[in-house]
Every structure is written in C-alpha cells, then in structure tokens.
C-alpha cells in the first residue's frame, strides 16, 4: 500500500486545484512553476487548508475524507512542516524552538535524540541564541530540527532553500540529503537541480493539475519542455 495517498479538490478564487497522487515513501518532489498550487497542496496535507472535496490518507490513517466527514485537525496529524521562511518563534531561544514540538505532542524528554538531531544539523553552537540573530541557513537548519524533533510521520518541506543565496543552498543541501534516512518527505520546489539531488519520486504539478508522475526522469522531461 502506498504511504501517502492524496486526492483533493480546492477552489480558491479564480484558481482551482484538482490533484491526485500516491507515493511509496522516500522523498517525493512536488515540482512545478510558481502558482501551480504546490503550497496549497502541502497545506492541505498538513491540515492548514481544508479541501472542498477529496481524501487524504497517510499510512493507515485517513486524515481527510469529505464523504465520511473526517478532518483530523492539523495539531493531531503529526506531520512536520518546514516553511519557506523558517517561521521560528522569535520569543523563544533556539533550544526552546527545537523542544516546542516535543512538548506540544506530549512526548517524553529525550536528550539523546535531541543531541543526535542537533549533531546531524550542526546547530549545537546556536542553542542559546534567539532566532533573530541567526543567518538564513542557520534558521532553516533549526526549522528542520524543530520539525524532526516532534517525531513526524511525514515531513513537508515547502521551498526550504528559496530564501537562501547560492552558497547557502549548497551549505544546506547535504543536511537535507542526510534526512532521507530519517523520515519520508514531500519536498516542494520549482528548482529542478535541487530536487534531482534529493528526490526519489516526482509529482509534476501544472496549473492545479498533476501533469506527470514518476522517477526523477520526470524532472528532465519537464525542464526540457520548458526550454523548448
């Protein structure tokens, strides 16, 4: 059985999204031009936007089913979300930001896991700082750590590198590649090069519709068509 199955419809003003895809796990790239509906789609998986119609299933759990009137609230979905702008809590230290998800999910304190993730992302020297004092790259690494420490069943990353310059992107990508062993991911980007390094399967989104699905060869075909 697929790990994540999504079949949703949503109208937002003039924009309409009707997408259907399934993934087996690994890193699913959600690829498409800006305005294709990528963020809307991940927001529906996270539970931040309610679809007009459809079903979302994660493993054996139905998260949303308009027919059966099921809509698991976002705070009970246990889906980690790394936003484009990080969205760290400005009033909390980096350490408190990292610990936030664990506290809210009612998980036991686990120093070893905290140390492991901090190590994985190289953020040990930042723990006492405020998010306002972090560089863009540091901020995104902390955001990733915060999402991982809630022990998510799925990690959503929405253009996590978009706010960074080229050098910073190269700095973060190795960390993201390390995550592949940690948790299944849905990785949103309009940047094919980034996705090629990290994705295991691809869903190509175009104007609110799924245009193609498959392996990373979909990325090449889509970019070739864009060039043509």
């Amino acid at each position, binding site marked *: 059985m697929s790990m994540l199955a999504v079949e949703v419809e949503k109208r937002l003003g003039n924009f309409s999204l009707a997408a259907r895809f399934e993934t087996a796990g690994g890193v699913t790239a959600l690829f498409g031009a800006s305005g294709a509906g990528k963020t809307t789609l991940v927001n529906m998986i*996270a*539970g*931040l936007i309610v679809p007009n119609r459809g079903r979302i299933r994660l493993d054996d759990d139905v998260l949303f089913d308009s027919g059966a009137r099921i809509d698991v*609230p*976002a*705070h*009970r*979905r*246990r*889906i*980690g*979300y790394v*936003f484009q*702008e990080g*969205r760290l*809590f*400005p*009033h909390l230290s980096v350490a408190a930001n990292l610990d*936030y*998800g664990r506290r*809210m*999910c*009612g998980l036991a304190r686990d120093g070893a896991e905290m140390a492991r993730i901090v190590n994985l992302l190289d953020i040990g020297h930042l723990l*006492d*700082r*405020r998010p*306002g*004092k972090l560089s863009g790259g540091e901020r995104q690494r902390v955001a990733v750590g*915060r*999402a991982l420490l*809630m022990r998510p069943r799925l990690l959503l990353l929405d253009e996590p590198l978009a706010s960074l310059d080229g050098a910073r992107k190269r700095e973060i990508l190795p960390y993201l590649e390390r995550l592949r062993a940690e948790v299944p991911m849905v990785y949103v980007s309009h940047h094919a090069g980034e996705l090629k390094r990290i994705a295991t399967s691809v869903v190509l989104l175009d104007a609110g519709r799924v245009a193609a699905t498959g392996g990373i060869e979909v990325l090449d075909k889509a970019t070739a068509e864009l060039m043509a």
Partner: protein
Amino acid sequence: MLDLSPDEWIAIRLSLKIAFVATAVALPFGIALAWLLARKNFWGKTLLDGLVHMPLVLPPVVTGYLLLISFGRRGPIGAFLADHFGIVFSFRWTGAALSCGVMGFPLLVRPIRLAIEAIDRKLEDAATTLGADRLWVFLTVTLPLAMPGLIAGMVLCFAKALGEFGATITFVSNIPGETQTISAAIYTLTQVPGGDAAASRLVLVAIAISLAALVVAEWLARRAGTRFHGE
C-alpha cells in the same frame, strides 16, 4: 515637606489598591475582548467595539451614574450580585475599583488588540503543525508575542484608574478610608480653608506614582523587546 499625615497615607494606599485591583480584574476580560475584536468577525462586532469605547467619550459622571443605577444596591446587577455572591459595590472600595476598571477598560483593550492584530499568523500555523491545539497556540505564541501591547495596556489602565475621579465619586461617593482616593482627597482639600499644603503634598505623590509607573512600563517594554531581537 512630604510629611504625610495618616489620612493622606490611607488615601494613597487606597488609591494604589484600587488601581491594582481594577487593572488585575480587568486584564483577563481585556485580553479576551481584544482577541475577539482582533480575530473574530461576528454580528454586533461594531456595536461591541463602540460599547467598549463608551467610557472614553462619555462624561465620567454619566458612566458613574450608569454604574450607580445598575450596580448600586437596588440596581438589577448590584442586587443580584449582593444576594447571590455577597459582592457589594455601593459606597465600598470595590465599587471604586469597578468604576476605575470600567473607565480604564478601553485604554487596556486597544493596545492589546493592536498587538494581537500585528502578530504574524503564520507563526500560529507553525505552532499548530507542531502539535499545539488552539489554547496552547494562544498561550505559547499569541500571548507572549502580544506582551508589549499587554504591558502598554496595563500601564494605561493603571494610570487611568489611579487618576479616575468623576465616575468614582458619582458611583461610590467620597468616603475617607473607603472610597476616597488621592484625586478625591485633593479635591476635598481644595474645598476647605487651609487645605493647600496637604493638597500640594498629595499632588507631589500623584506625580511620583505616575512617573514611577511610566518608568516601570518603559523598562518592561524594553525587556520584552530585547527578548525578541537580542540575545
């Protein structure tokens, strides 16, 4: 010169007590209302907003009179509270605290509302995805981020409560030791021959308390500010 008489000390202590109690009791209502006005759309919102601001524009005597006929011993609310909970407002310091709280309420609500409106709701969404339900989002994200507004509102409300005169004297009169605050005492002293020296002493005290409140507020606001931007 600041050789305060026992009566003057009583007025000062009473003023501080009334202002503290008025602000503290008004605060939870103020936060709830500020949140409601900042975040929710509902029928009668404009009316509610207007009602909250009424004490700011009405003559204080009118507010005091309205309190008297509703919260007085024979007023509908006053009689209910006295019969069922033993809470009596008329001619008691509690009544002074009520009128001060009502007068300070719009000054309390406004900065909190503005602070809540200024919060980036995306941060609240982030908290939701991390497992926080609505109450926890409010307690761990919304409220701490609105702290500068909370401090500003509390100081304004406290200052208003400290200086309130018209509504209080109309509602609970001017009884030394029970409802006679600094303002009322100064007023009384200006009405009797030879009261000038005592009035001046109380005036100085009023200035000192107000300045101290401002300094404390500034310090608190700075602390809240550096918590966001500094280390």
